[in-house]
């Protein structure tokens, strides 16, 4: 058995002794080894994973195993696991071993998931192609000359290439949904604050969200059910009880009203993506869903606002990498001021430096009002666009990315062009709403096409229900 089963089926197969977690871990380790050239993992925990598998088997025997018993999970290397390396794919964190485990990861472990390794990503999650990694690029399993998307490229590839049962990524401006689209898997960015950020290396704290990649919609629902919930260690985390996402999936939801925003289907969108999405939408209409045209008039300003606010937050968050307490320390420094500069200049990669520079610029004296405050105001306008739209519709359907997977190296020389590739995912993070990528087909080169569903804050169940309907009846 393997590789074409949903996570729920795998867990029940383990419980019924039709398969064993140890066998599953061994299969995945062999597969990871066989597909090493994809470069999806920064670290693989072979021995620890096999030990965990044995421990889970004992729990299954005793009937005390958790919801994720025996599932093999890959974690983006920006999340902390006690005693295991945490690099954020940066030289500045080489040899860093965290002292505690991120709440999101701990919740998976508490439900008896097996952590098989840490996945490659753009350095500090800054990038859209996974090419900004100290560990090198990750290859798209569908076409090795193409980018897997980013920043959670390794996590998307780990699911797409069957190197784990599901994986965890993070999304600050599209870093789960866009790689999910490029690799042809499901990827969910939850509402901001639904999943605790404790133990997640901060990039832009008012944007960062943790979420799952899966082969099936059920896998994403199951993972979210475990990840979601308040954490006293993250005072921004959502206070109320999260929904029962797995049961909600099978509940027959009322017929949702779907909105299609003009602004997301304009020029620059690859024609095949447009055609595929229109096809799905017309089939939803035939199935009885009401489809309405809506407006999100400030869409065109999202990228500009995003790159002011996230780089400003990043420039503050990344001030901690100074070579004093942990991580890389620059050599041959005469004074502590030299050491800061040597450490940061030698330790950070180019894109991270570029964003620190931009963030420092927009926060610097004389520019704060013109850039930072202006962008915060535009952020409210974008949030208001969505609030207005969700007064009329339950779900908004858009493309996830304007193109299918681009070539490795294609955009690395032009940072602004790379930023513009996130046009359809960024508004979501400005507003803090949830978004789901659904793989709906392929273009004429066989590259996956992703469609994005958006819902209002904390309405993940609606996203998952419509996702399930599409998976089951439309695709």
């Amino acid at each position, binding site marked *: 058995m393997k590789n074409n089963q949903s996570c729920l089926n795998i867990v029940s197969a383990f419980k019924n002794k039709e398969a064993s977690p140890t066998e599953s871990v061994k299969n995945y380790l062999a597969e990871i080894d066989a597909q090493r050239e994809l470069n999806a993992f920064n670290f693989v925990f072979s021995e620890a994973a096999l030990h965990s598998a044995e421990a889970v088997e004992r729990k299954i025997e005793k009937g005390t195993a958790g919801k994720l018993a025996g599932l093999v999970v890959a974690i983006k290397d920006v999340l902390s696991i006690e005693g295991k390396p945490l690099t954020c794919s940066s030289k500045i964190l080489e040899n860093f071993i965290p002292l505690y485990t991120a709440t999101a990861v701990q919740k998976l472990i508490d439900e008896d998931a097996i952590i098989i390794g840490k996945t490659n990503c753009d350095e500090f999650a800054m990038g859209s192609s996974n090419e900004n990694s100290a560990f090198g690029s990750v290859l798209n399993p569908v076409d090795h000359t193409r980018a897997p998307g980013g920043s959670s490229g390794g996590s998307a590839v780990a699911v797409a290439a069957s190197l784990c049962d599901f994986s965890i990524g993070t999304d600050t401006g599209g870093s789960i949904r866009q790689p999910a689209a490029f690799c042809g898997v499901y990827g969910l960015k939850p509402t901001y604050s639904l999943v605790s950020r404790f133990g997640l290396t901060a990039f832009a704290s008012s944007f960062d969200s943790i979420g799952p990649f899966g082969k099936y919609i059920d896998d994403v629902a199951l993972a979210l059910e475990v990840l979601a919930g308040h954490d006293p260690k993250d*005072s921004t985390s959502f206070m109320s009880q999260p929904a029962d996402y797995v049961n909600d999936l099978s509940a027959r939801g009322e017929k949702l009203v779907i909105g299609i925003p003009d602004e997301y289907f304009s020029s620059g969108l690859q024609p095949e993506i447009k055609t595929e999405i229109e096809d799905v939408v017309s089939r939803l209409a035939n199935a009885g869903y009401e489809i309405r045209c809506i407006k999100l008039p400030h869409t065109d300003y999202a990228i500009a606002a995003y790159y002011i606010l996230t780089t400003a937050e990043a420039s503050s968050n990344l001030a901690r990498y100074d070579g004093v307490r942990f991580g890389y320390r620059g050599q041959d420094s005469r004074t502590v001021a030299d050491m800061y500069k040597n450490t940061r200049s030698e330790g950070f990669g180019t894109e991270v430096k570029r964003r620190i520079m931009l963030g420092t610029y927009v926060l610097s004296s004389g520019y704060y009002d013109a850039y930072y405050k202006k962008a915060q105001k535009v952020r409210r306008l974008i949030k208001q666009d969505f609030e207005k739209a969700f007064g009329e519709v339950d779900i908004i359907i858009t493309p996830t990315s304007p193109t299918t997977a681009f070539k490795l190296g294609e955009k690395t020389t032009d940072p602004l062009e790379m930023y513009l590739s996130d046009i359809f995912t960024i508004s979501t993070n400005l507003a803090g709403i949830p978004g789901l990528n659904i793989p709906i087909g392929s273009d004429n080169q066989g590259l996956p096409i992703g469609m994005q569903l958006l819902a209002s804050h904390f309405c993940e169940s609606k996203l998952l229900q419509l996702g399930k309907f599409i998976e089951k009846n439309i695709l």
Partner: protein
Amino acid sequence: MRVTNKDAAYIADLAKLKFSEEELNKMTNELDEILTYIDKLNELDTEQIEPLSHPIELQNVFRADVLLPSTPRELALKNAPEKTDSYFKSPKVLNQ
């Protein structure tokens, strides 16, 4: 040009980064290009709009003032590039 080499050098100093002359030229041009793009925000009249600092607008979150165990010193020093028995060690702070 919105950004000159001199501006970029000043920002680099604030951000505790250093660049070769060639890197600084490139960084200056890229920042200039990005900031030119960002200028499109000025098309919007935001005079009456309140800035939004957080997508979920929370009130203050309080907790009881209870002392909990914190990281023991030897663990906190574990990842230090240089240390003494109980301190992080750095080069001279005051330039002589």
